């Protein structure tokens, strides 16, 4: 035992005891220590919690009570202690944790909800992308720039050396001196600024590269331009040079205008320069048709109209050059000229024909020297007078003829008046067309004048002799010059005019005296009518260069009686008692046609615009047809059918009168009959209609079967109504049918990608991106179209 006691080691013994004690609840695996990030916890790594047996033996851990006890001792923390006690008293036992699968399920649900919410953010973006007219990929990234320059402060850390300070001070002194002595006013601050800028201009490597690139580019451009200029100088085409020159002049003009607005002094200089060049050109023999070119052409001028034109143009240019000078010479002259001019200009100037004016100028200069101004004026006054007379004469002629007409018409007129009394409650409306006629007749006269003058002009003009027939004026225009004719007719005209006036007066008196049937307004109408009729032109004048509205002029004249009639008709029509169902149906047909010709509704997409007069008329007709819905439509229907079949089954007589029939005696009627019979083209036996015995059926047999296979049988997806689809199909998109801008808009592709560019997936910045600036002009145009949610679109959504 003593040996044993000797060997006794308390530590080893304790260890042994512990090992024995632990024998039952062995824990071989040591607690793991983590050295790397590990999300997955193995079950082998886990330790069991400390057993209860051990806790008994080990010193008791600190409990809440102990804490409270300690806190009680100090008055400072008494309250805290109490609170803690309360907390301990009111504690609840936690619920048992959920089963693992259930807990996981909950966690998954929560996670999924979060994800759905997150994905929901994209709804708007995706919807916008899908509905966009044009999508451009890669999605253009808008960089948002924030200007931070306001907050930027220049670093001012450089320490100045003594020498620098000295220099600065001396500089200041020097400047002051200069200011005082010479009055030097260079701003120091500005200088400093410049200096700073220069200092800052230390270029980075990239900038240097950029600058070099730029320089290289400029050099390349320069060489390109010089090459181009060299090439252009070699071009021999006259036309090209002409065009180029014109272009240059245009550019100069533009420049000048701009200068006028911005810098009048420079403009003045420019003007002088221009003037100088003009003078130079004037001094030279250019445009005088003295060059070799002109001479060569003159040889050909006899035969070639174009050549003549060219030469004339050339001359006109020279004249223009010289003409301008005169205008600017003195204002007095100009005004004096103008005093006379307006009449002739008014007469002469045709806004539709820019050539007339020029030609007169040409004439003037061609014919006479520029100094003979007074003669010129005389000529024109004379000519104007003549023209006036001519006009009068013509009017007179018309009136004379109309007198006869009016006599005949008088009776008719009276009848018409009665009709008018019945019909028209708007006298003013009736008066208008008459006035119009008046005006138009005037216009026509003027036209005639013009044409006449022109013809004369052409005679005088050395070049432009065009084969135009002379105006026939009562047949004697060929004999003498126009002036002669005028003189001849002058007296006649006057006499006739006076006569005419008298007659008119008489008739007016008659009308006044006549028993008044209607109201006064109507009488006035009658008077007006009379006048208009009196002035109406009956004889057609020969017209050269006739304007396109010729027919229009004629129409109103015809229209008067027509209108009267129509008005009578319209007045009659309202109390409709008997309307052919035939007529009604045809009307419906016409309406359909008109609606089908109204195109581009889809483009405009404006209901208000569609509702125009035609529609109103159609509506009226519709109401009529609705009113007579229960008329005998079936009979009508059948009639249509029979008509159809009749057309189909008629026989054709091929015999022509005279053909193959000998004249004279001995030719019997029977022979002829036989012959006719022989020539009767018999068609196949009458075909049976497919809808023959079906009363309520009408099969359109003339409809083409070939066309049928091209027709759409059902309304395709985005559309809901036939009308919508038809409208969309009817609206053309080709550049032959719609303007270029509309064409571009209509044919803008839905998806645009660029070659060789990676299209990255959408990024989150798309969610916060402001409305994208549209780079393409067509896109912006499309966007500007007011969006009316059409039915098709609604269907799409």
């Amino acid at each position: 035992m003593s040996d044993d006691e000797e060997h006794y080691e308390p530590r080893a013994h304790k260890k042994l005891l512990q090992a024995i004690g632990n024998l039952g609840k062995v824990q071989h695996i040591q607690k793991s220590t983590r050295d790397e990030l590990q999300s997955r916890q193995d079950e082998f790594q886990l330790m069991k919690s400390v057993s209860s047996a051990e806790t008994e033996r080990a010193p008791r851990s600190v409990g809440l009570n102990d804490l409270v006890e300690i806190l009680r001792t100090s008055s400072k923390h008494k309250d805290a202690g109490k609170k803690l006690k309360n907390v301990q008293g009111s504690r609840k036992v936690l619920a048992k944790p959920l089963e693992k699968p259930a807990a996981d399920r909950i966690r998954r649900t929560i996670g999924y909800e979060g994800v759905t919410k997150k994905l929901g953010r994209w709804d708007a973006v995706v919807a916008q992308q899908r509905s966009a007219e044009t999508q451009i990929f890669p999605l253009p990234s808008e960089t948002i720039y924030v200007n931070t320059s306001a907050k930027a402060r220049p670093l001012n850390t450089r320490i100045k050396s003594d020498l620098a300070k000295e220099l600065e001070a001396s500089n200041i002194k020097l400047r002051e001196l200069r200011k005082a002595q010479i009055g030097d006013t260079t701003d120091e601050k500005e200088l400093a600024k410049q200096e700073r800028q220069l200092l800052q201009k230390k270029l980075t490597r990239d900038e240097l590269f950029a600058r070099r690139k730029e320089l290289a580019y400029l050099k390349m451009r320069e060489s390109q331009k010089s090459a181009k200029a060299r090439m252009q100088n070699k071009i021999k085409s006259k036309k090209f040079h002409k065009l180029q020159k014109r272009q240059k002049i245009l550019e100069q003009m533009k420049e000048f205008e701009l200068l006028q607005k911005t810098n009048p002094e420079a403009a003045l200089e420019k003007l002088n320069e221009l003037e100088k060049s003009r003078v130079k050109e004037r001094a030279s023999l250019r445009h005088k048709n003295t060059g070799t070119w002109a001479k060569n052409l003159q040889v050909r001028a006899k035969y070639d109209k174009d050549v003549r034109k060219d030469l004339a143009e050339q001359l006109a240019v020279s004249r223009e050059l010289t003409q301008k000078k005169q205008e600017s010479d003195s204002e007095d002259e100009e005004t004096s000229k103008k005093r006379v001019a307006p009449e002739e200009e008014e007469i002469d100037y045709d806004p539709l024909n820019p050539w007339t004016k020029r030609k007169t100028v040409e004439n003037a200069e061609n014919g006479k020297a520029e100094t003979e101004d007074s003669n010129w004026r005389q000529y024109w006054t004379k000519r104007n007078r003549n023209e006036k007379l001519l006009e009068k004469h013509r009017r007179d002629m018309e009136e004379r003829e109309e007198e006869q007409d009016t006599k005949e018409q008088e009776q008719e007129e009276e009848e018409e008046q009665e009709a008018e009394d019945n019909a028209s409650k708007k006298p003013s409306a009736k008066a208008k067309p008459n006035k119009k006629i008046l005006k138009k007749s005037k216009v026509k006269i003027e036209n005639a004048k013009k044409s006449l003058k022109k013809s004369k002009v052409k005679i005088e003009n050395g070049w432009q002799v065009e084969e135009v027939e002379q105006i026939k004026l009562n047949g004697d225009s060929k004999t003498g010059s126009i002036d002669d004719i005028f003189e001849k007719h002058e007296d006649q005209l006057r006499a006739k005019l006076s006569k005419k006036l008298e007659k008119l007066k008489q008739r007016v008196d008659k009308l006044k005296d006549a028993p008044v049937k209607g109201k006064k307004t109507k009488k006035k109408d009658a008077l007006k009518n009379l006048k208009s009729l009196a002035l109406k032109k009956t004889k057609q004048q020969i017209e050269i260069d006739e304007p396109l509205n010729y027919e229009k002029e004629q129409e109103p004249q015809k229209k008067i009686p027509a209108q009267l009639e129509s008005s009578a008709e319209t007045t009659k029509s309202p109390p409709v008692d008997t309307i052919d169902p035939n007529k009604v149906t045809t009307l419906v047909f016409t309406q359909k046609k008109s609606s089908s010709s109204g195109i581009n509704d889809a483009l405009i997409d404006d209901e208000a615009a569609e509702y125009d007069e035609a529609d109103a008329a159609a509506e009226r007709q519709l109401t009529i047809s609705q009113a007579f819905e229960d008329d005998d439509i079936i009979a009508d229907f059948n009639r249509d059918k029979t008509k159809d079949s009749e057309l189909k089954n008629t026989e054709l007589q091929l015999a022509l009168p005279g053909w193959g029939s000998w004249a004279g005696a001995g030719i019997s009627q029977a022979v002829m009959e036989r012959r006719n019979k022989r020539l009767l083209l018999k068609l196949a036996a009458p075909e049976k209609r497919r809808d023959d015995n079906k009363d309520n059926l009408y099969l359109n047999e003339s409809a083409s079967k070939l066309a049928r296979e091209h027709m759409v049988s059902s309304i395709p997806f985005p559309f809901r109504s036939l009308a919508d689809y038809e409208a969309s199909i009817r609206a053309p998109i080709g550049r032959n049918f719609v303007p270029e801008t509309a064409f571009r808009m209509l044919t803008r592709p839905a998806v645009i990608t660029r070659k060789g560019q990676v299209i990255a997936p959408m990024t989150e910045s798309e969610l916060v991106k402001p409305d994208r600036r549209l780079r393409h002009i067509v896109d912006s145009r499309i966007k500007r179209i007011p969006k009316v949610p059409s039915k098709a679109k609604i269907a799409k959504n």
Partner: protein
Amino acid sequence: MKVKMISRNPDNYVRETKLQQHKMPRNYDPTLHPLEGPREYVRAMNATKLDRVFAKPFVCNLSGHRDGVSCFGKHPKQLSTMATGAYDGEVRIWDLANRISSRNFVAHDGFVRGIAYTRYGDRIFTVGDDKTIKVWKAEAPEIGQDEVPVNTILSKFGLHGISHNHKDNKFATCGEVCAIWDEKHNDPLKTLKWGVDTLHTISYNPVETSILACCASDRSIILYDQREAQPLRKVVLTMKSNKLAWNPMEAFNFTVANEDCNLYTFDTRKLQTPLKVHFDHVSAVTDVDYSPTGKEFVSASYDKTIRIYNAHHSHSRDIYHTKRMQHVVCVAWSLDNRYVFSGSDEMNVRMWKANASEKLGVIRPRERVNFNYQEALKQKYAAHPQIKRIARHRQVPRHVLNAQKKMRTVKEKEQVKEANVRKHSKKGKVPYVSEKKKHVLKEEV
């Protein structure tokens, strides 16, 4: 008597400078164009016909692999670079512009299961049947140097696919479990498991980059979030899904290529019913890839064809096939939306035009305008029967045609049968089930 003379003002038709455009007088008054409808119709018809005439989609064949092509890896930044993996463990990098293989190396023992480029395309991750993830440099090694992986990670689990996050330096692999990895760690950050044997494909959402989806061998599609400790949701279809592709422009939509010849487009938020069922294939669909515009996708099938679908239509827009192309295993749409690549069992990678009749090369502005006009016309008159017929007509291989016929008869028969059953049973007992709902078995939470 009248003498009519035409007098025209040269100002109206002579240009002042040569830079001006010629004045083209044109009267748009519709009454002057009574035949504008028929004219446009004829133009549309001609455009449609020309479209078919010029429809020659095949661009080139990239040959070099010595075994069937198993997977593609698209370079995220370069259009001319693509990596392909084969059944024999070889990886080839293609220079598409020159149509040559610029580099090749054997990466794995057995199949290469997946290839993924990193975010900026500077490295390539490959996974193979040998349970390793290998990291390669995107540039070829210098002459004289061996092809060695930058890093090789031995995984505890089998690996069937890999997908790289579009914004993070993280990637995910699938196999027995779905594991999220960081590029810089050799251990997965996270493994996500939901009681399935094998996950055979994985794909990160390119827009909401923390979301990813897997297809599992128990016919299910499982959604994950790389930040969550648990998977999100599972939807079980009637048959196994082979591949999954997310729409790059619509964050919540994805399409799966299914074994039952169909493709299904799902909205992540409503998994009970697919948004669209895409028919037309006659055999199992093996792969699907979205166009970068998100408007269309291309699918490869075991029936030796690839088809292009509009993402919102149930029938295909186009079908591509060649005589020599065998079962197509993988397919990819180039990132500039112009080309489609297909890799097939017979060791070839083929390059197709995404738009069969598109003109390659420089297109002048006037040409462009004309093409646009033709396109607009085709769209306008698309519903007209003749135009529809021409536009829809495709020559398909005989076996496809026969299979189509067979499938059609089977379907008709089933329909007749169902109708008969319905007729002879109590009202409401045989309900009408929409085609969409037929294919989804259940959605598991």
